[in-house]
């Protein structure tokens, strides 16, 4: 039982990271229906940005976090403007390939500039831990979880309750109709990228601190898993992304704990396939049947 609870904590903290990346994924996918393969790489850029700031400028956690968010947000917007905007009306596959191209550029440009060697962070957050009964929890795990939950709530508020959020939803349904309402579609999409990418930046910084190891290809696998998390929760749904991320984190950890760690990645894909077959719209997604 102790082991189980400890594993649950492990799973939750891993899942929080997936959730944080998935939040951005789900927003971007929601608005332009693009699997933004570069999203994972923006997360990587966030980690590198904070690395440079803390290592070479000696700034602390909060400034590093904020600067990384801004940096990633701006990069996200630039990518959208340069690479995706011309393809708004192209086929999905074309857009997907472009996203893959962008992802290559980010990964390998970082590798070229920063080297492929792993990098480590200076100590930014306390690595203290406390015991909750028999379970050990580190303060960093608490920070990650709390930050993720707060960001999810903020995001949900923005999307559901603010004007910009409504504009985002309108654009995601019908761009031209949104334009006729006086919505600035380009601005709305850019805003979505800004928000989503900034979240990825947060994830990057937290991962950098928590695991103390970053490298130029670190975005690939978590990026993919975060997307799966978003699909699992119902793409476009913010609480869905959160639940999906946590679920996948826990599932992975439990497979390691009670099965074999060899198959922890396989389980993620199996979950994905099962959910797609059983409930294609995802856990919280709306089941929209095509009207004939």
């Amino acid at each position, binding site marked *: 039982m102790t082991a189980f609870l400890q594993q649950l904590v492990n799973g939750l903290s891993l899942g929080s990271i997936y959730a944080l990346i998935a939040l951005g994924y789900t927003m971007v996918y929601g608005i332009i229906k693009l699997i933004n393969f570069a999203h994972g790489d923006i997360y990587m850029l966030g980690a590198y940005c904070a690395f440079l700031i803390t290592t070479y400028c000696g700034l602390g956690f909060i400034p590093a976090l904020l600067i990384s968010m801004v940096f990633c947000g701006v990069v996200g917007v630039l990518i959208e403007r340069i690479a995706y905007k*011309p393809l708004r009306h192209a086929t999905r596959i*074309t857009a997907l390939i*472009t996203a893959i191209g962008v992802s290559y*550029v980010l990964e390998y440009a970082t590798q070229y500039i920063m080297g492929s060697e792993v990098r480590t962070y200076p100590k930014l957050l306390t690595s203290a831990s406390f015991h909750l009964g028999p379970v050990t929890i580190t303060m960093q795990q608490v920070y990650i979880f709390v930050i993720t939950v707060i960001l999810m709530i903020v995001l949900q508020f923005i999307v559901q309750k603010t004007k910009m959020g409504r504009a985002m939803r309108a654009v995601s349904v019908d761009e031209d109709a949104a334009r006729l309402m006086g919505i600035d579609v380009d601005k709305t999409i850019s805003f979505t990228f800004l928000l989503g990418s900034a979240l990825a930046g947060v994830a990057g910084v937290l991962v950098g601190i928590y695991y103390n190891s970053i490298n130029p290809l670190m975005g690939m696998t978590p990026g993919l898993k975060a997307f799966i998390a978003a*699909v699992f929760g119902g793409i476009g749904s913010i609480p869905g992304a959160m639940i999906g991320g946590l679920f996948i984190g826990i599932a992975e950890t439990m497979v390691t704990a009670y099965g074999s760690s060899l198959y922890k990645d396989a389980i993620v894909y199996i979950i994905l396939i099962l959910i*797609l077959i059983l409930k294609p719209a995802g856990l919280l997604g709306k089941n929209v049947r*095509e009207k004939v």
Partner: protein
Amino acid sequence: MRKELLNKANFAWLLLSVVSFVVLTILMKVGIIGSYYSITLYNIFINIILAVSLNLVIGVCGQFSLGHAGFMCIGAYCAGIMVKMMPNMTGLVIGVLIGFVLSTIVALIVSIPTLRLKGDYLAIATLGFAEIVRILVQNMEITNGAAGLNGIPKLTTFPLLFVCAVISILVVCNFTHSAPGRACLSIREDEIASEAMGINTTKYKVIAFVIGALLASLAGALFACNFYVIKPDQFTFNKSIDILVMVVFGGMGSMTSSVLAAVAIGIINVVLANFSEIRMIIYGLALVGIMIFKPTGILGTKELSFKKLFDKRKEKSA
């Protein structure tokens, strides 16, 4: 030979294949295409099979699959294992056949549940399946796990490769230009309407998927017997993406484009090889650039057709 097959267009195709085969063989024999470039050439032919078969699934049938590397992996390992036990042509043939059986089974297991999904969801599900295949291969005894198989005899010869590529193209083209092929095209266009026209959409999607899987597994077998070594990490989803890039780069739905794209990307790789660290950056930029400026691929849906060519000439002279 049946008389339907004896027409000018088919003859032109035959001529084109024979001429290109002879020319390439001579170029390699006299060393104008050196060993490095012939590796590239071999690679191009393997990629042609992969691109054409994926184009059947994506371009013709409209099913966005990102799992092609999984089938290639199955084919490669079946052939690799077989050929290591029996290092000759018979071994290869048996290996290919086992690969066919296995990839058909896997394709059926994958496709029947997942082909109900659409677009990106299907892509992610197939990607997941391919990754599961790879993880299994990585953890099995017979595949030698993560270390992969080495010392695979090089049995892939140019004539063999050429014939396989031609057969693959023929299979896909013949399929496309037939009633089952039309059924697949109609599924791509509008699945609901297609079903309303009396087409068992699941059946035809599965057929297209299985043919695609068979050809990918053939390509895998030829790949295994060409490079001495195969490892599970050669069949990650990056490989699927490489194949996808060829299909889209050329133009979806057009086999001519797939062939040309395989050639073009082969050549681009040779050129980029000189840029080592920055080649992937250039490759990424090129992908973005091409998609922005020519989103339909180099040829779009245009198809080289001798039949049309001759028909046009006939019309003109008439």
